Every structure is written in C-alpha cells, then in structure tokens.
C-alpha cells in the first residue's frame, strides 16, 4: 500500500488536524471528529449537518462554511460516523431554528443518523429533520436492495439546501429544498481501478488492465457489472443512458451537469468526459445550464468518474448561484 500517511489507524484524525491547520475559517473538534464553520451556531439560521465515512473528501468536511454546511462528522474511512458525533454536532450548530441532517442512503449512515436523531429528540430538544439522498441509478430493484445509494447529488443538496438556509427559510422549507433536489437528481459512476482502504492495506477488488467496473458506489466497492475497457465516448454512454432512462431531464430550466472525479482521475480526463457527456445530452435534447467538474465526492485514490444530472428551475438556479465559501466549493464570497 502506497499512501502519504503514517499509521493507518491515525489517518482520519491526522487529516482532520491538517484541515484545521489549513483552514482558519473552520473549527475542528478532533475528539469528536467534527468540522464546524468557526462561527457556528449561527443564530436564527437552520443548521445543516452532514457526515459519513472518510475517504470522500472534499465531501463532507470540505463543504463546511457559509452557504453550505454548518458542520460535518467524519467517520473512519468508508465507515459511517457514530450517533455521539452527530448528537454533539447537532447541539453545536443549533441556532434556535433546528437542524437538518443530510444523510446518504447507506444502511450504516441511515441507522447511525436515526439513532442520533432519536437521542437529539430525547436529550436536547433540538428539532431535527433528516433528508436521505438516494440518487444512484446503478441500483435497480430497490425492493430487493437497501435502496439506491446517495452519491453525487449529496454535494448538490448540501449546496442548495445551504443556500436556502442562508435565505432564512425555516427547517421545513430547507428540508423541502433538500428533498426536491434529491428527487430531481440522478447519478451513475464507474471505476478504472479499485482503491485501498488504509486499514485493509490492499485494494478492495482486483481489476485487470483491460476491464472497468460500471455502477460503482463511493466506497471502493465493486460495481454492478464488469465490462471491457472502453473509450471515453462509450463510457459516457454507459453512464448517461441509465440516468436519462430513469428520469426526464428535458425541463425548461435546463440541468446542472456534474462530472465528478473519484479521486485518482485527473482533470484532463474529467474534461474529456465532460465533453462526451455534454454531447450526448445535446443529442437527447437535454440542456445544460450549470456545470461542475472535478473531484467533489471521491473514493480515496480510485480512478474513475461519476455523472450527476440535476433538473434545474429558476429557484434551484438562484440557490446554486448564491454565494458559498467553503474549502471545496467557493464563489461570490
């Protein structure tokens, strides 16, 4: 295993301490592994909390700051954080208007956030609403699975719900935006390589030089199927086709096209993919009004990408363009 780390057991704590050192706008509670915006709680504003396993950076800690999250809980690599962390963070960001939990749909994340919400109700009196993201069209037959995974759309929910909270909406209103974004977004991912969980010390799966995995999640897990290595053009087809088959994206407001890197794929390739995807969308009559390209929700050093499409409308567009000031996403501030 070749990584820029010390003891694998310390990687999350040490990265958090690096984040604390690099970003004076953030406050990091190393004991609870929580990243706060330094001025939390913001009085009168709905607090936004997310969290999940580490290894997806900049998600979630890199999205803490004005216009996005108020705090993020970091679990061990690919392991949901625990209820104690979430409870502590919920307390720490409640400015009197309640707290929204943004939860990616994985059994572990859902159960831990559920327990945290139960504890919050019992122990603190802070009003908590949870929104679960589940945008991954790679997961079919939701009846026979744990349901669709929360992937790329999570980034967009955090941005758009964050902007809604900044506009002064109440908890129900912010949660409604978050749900609406989740409903309007779909994603699909693929991997060129596996990744190595530090504590495991070797790649989660083996992938021959001439094969790729289609329909992966963001935890280094293998995908739905393995296919021969293909040109970017065909990979783009394999990702976009199931997205368009699952939802109509020809709405008037156009879409937000988000081409995401899995961690080990450089920008050069992501832009090639962006080109291929946007050409397919143009042919399908899907307009693109906003773009996001880069590694925003990653799987350690996995090479690969995912495509997320979000149907926009005037309101979502305005919330997208609203100022945001976090290490991982910043504009207008």
């Amino acid at each position: 295993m070749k990584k820029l780390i010390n003891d694998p057991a310390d990687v999350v704590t040490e990265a958090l301490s690096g984040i604390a050192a690099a970003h004076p706008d953030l406050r990091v509670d190393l004991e609870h592994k929580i990243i706060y915006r330094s001025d939390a709680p913001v009085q009168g504003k709905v607090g936004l909390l997310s969290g999940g396993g580490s290894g997806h950076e900049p998600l979630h800690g890199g999205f803490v700051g004005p216009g996005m999250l108020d705090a993020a809980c970091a679990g061990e690599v690919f392991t949901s954080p625990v209820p104690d962390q979430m409870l502590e963070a919920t307390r720490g960001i409640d400015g009197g208007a309640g707290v929204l939990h943004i939860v990616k749909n994985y059994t572990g994340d859902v159960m831990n956030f559920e327990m945290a919400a139960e504890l919050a109700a019992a122990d603190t009196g802070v009003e908590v609403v949870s929104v679960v993201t589940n945008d991954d069209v790679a997961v079919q037959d939701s009846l026979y699975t744990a349901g669709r995974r929360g992937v790329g759309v999570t980034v967009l929910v955090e941005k758009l719900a964050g902007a809604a909270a900044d506009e002064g909406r109440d908890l129900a209103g912010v949660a409604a935006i978050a749900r609406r974004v989740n409903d309007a977004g779909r994603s699909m991912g693929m991997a060129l390589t596996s990744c190595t969980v530090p504590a495991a010390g070797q790649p989660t799966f083996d992938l021959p030089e001439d094969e790729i995995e289609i329909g992966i999640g963001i935890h280094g897990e293998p995908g739905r199927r393995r296919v021969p290595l293909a040109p970017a053009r065909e990979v783009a087809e394999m990702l976009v086709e199931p997205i368009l088959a699952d939802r109509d994206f020809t709405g008037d407001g156009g879409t937000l096209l988000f081409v995401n890197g899995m961690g080990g794929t450089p920008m050069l390739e992501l832009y090639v993919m962006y080109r291929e995807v946007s050409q397919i969308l143009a042919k399908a009559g899907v307009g693109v009004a906003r773009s996001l390209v880069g590694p925003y929700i990653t799987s350690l050093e996995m090479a690969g990408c995912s495509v997320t499409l979000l149907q926009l409308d005037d309101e979502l567009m305005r919330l997208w363009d609203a100022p945001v000031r976090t290490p991982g996403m910043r504009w207008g501030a």
Partner: protein
Amino acid sequence: MAGAGIDAAALDRWIRAFAAAITEHEAELTRLDSAIGDADHGANMTRGLKAVVAKLDDGAATGPGALLKQTGMTLVSTVGGASGPLYGTFFLRMATAVGDTDTLDGAAFAAALRAGVEGVVARGKAEAGDKTMYDALAPAVDALDAALGGEDAAGALSAAAAAAAAGRDATTPMQARKGRASYLGERSVGHQDPGATSAALLVQAAADTLG
C-alpha cells in the same frame, strides 16, 4: 449453562472472548467485506471491541444489565457503519431484557439473546435469507431454545454455535438484499457474509465461556 447461572463475571468472559475472536479474525472479516462490501468490517469490529474491553477493564459496570448496556453503548459509539448500530442495539436490548437480575439461568439468557436478535431486526429490518448477520443469529437463538429443554447448558450453547456456523455458511450462496452487499445484485452470490461471520464468532464465544 453454567451450573451456578450466568453472572456478570461470566458475561465479562463472554465479551472478552468475542473481542479476542474478532481480533484474531480481523483480516478475514476485512477480506470478506472486500469481496461484497467496503473492506472495513474487520477494522470496525476490532476498534469497537477494543473499546469495549477497555471499558470492562475500567470495571465501572457491575451486574449483567449494566455490563451489557455499557457494551452496547460503547459499540454504538465506536463502531459506526452498519454493524455499530446493529451490534450496539443487540447488546442494549439484551441489557433491557436482563433488567437488574444478578444471575441468569439458561432460559433468561436465551430470552435475552432473543431480545437482542429482535433488536437487530427492529433496527435493520433484515429477514431470513437477506444475507446478513441475522442469518447466523436467528438459527442460533432457535437452536438454543430448542436445546434448552433437553440438553445441559454446555450442550445447548454448542448447538447454538453450530447453528450459527451453519447459518453463516448458508449465506454464501445467497444474494444479498440488505446492506451494501445488496448493491452487487447477483455478484454477491458465492461470498460469505462478513456480518454473519462475526455473529458466528459471538455465539461461539458464548459456547466457549458460558457452557
């Protein structure tokens, strides 16, 4: 089960034996979770049970209920992922079932175990055949109940451990319908479930220490 009944000291031995088994099998659990999951079940359980043993070493909890509750709370607070809330709930529900009893007889222990397993279902909604830890736990409590009438404690627990092991093995041909292995669809077939594997270690540890 132990002629004198199961007291806090016995439960302490059980949980420590479980912790030792987990540490011993950490790499195997990780390997199994690599095939159909995210390669962290070994690290998750090891981290959690280290914390549990540290608490036992502190010696603050006295009595079966307190000890089980402390174990459940510690697992919830340290494991994370799917297995944290599930094993945590398991021990917390056992604690509730035990109440403030000082010593459990066989039936009380079996009832507590069943309550724990029901907690796993309440939390995770798994059904038989979903390819989860439930597929090792459910046959174990059934076997324990069935054996309690006839056999001695040791024999009953051995039967439970054998049933858990068989349940674990039976997960291999199953297609996962819960947890992250379910995302693999048919590709989950042919791999033993990591959570069922750790669950079989739990029951085996009971047979080894409480019999």
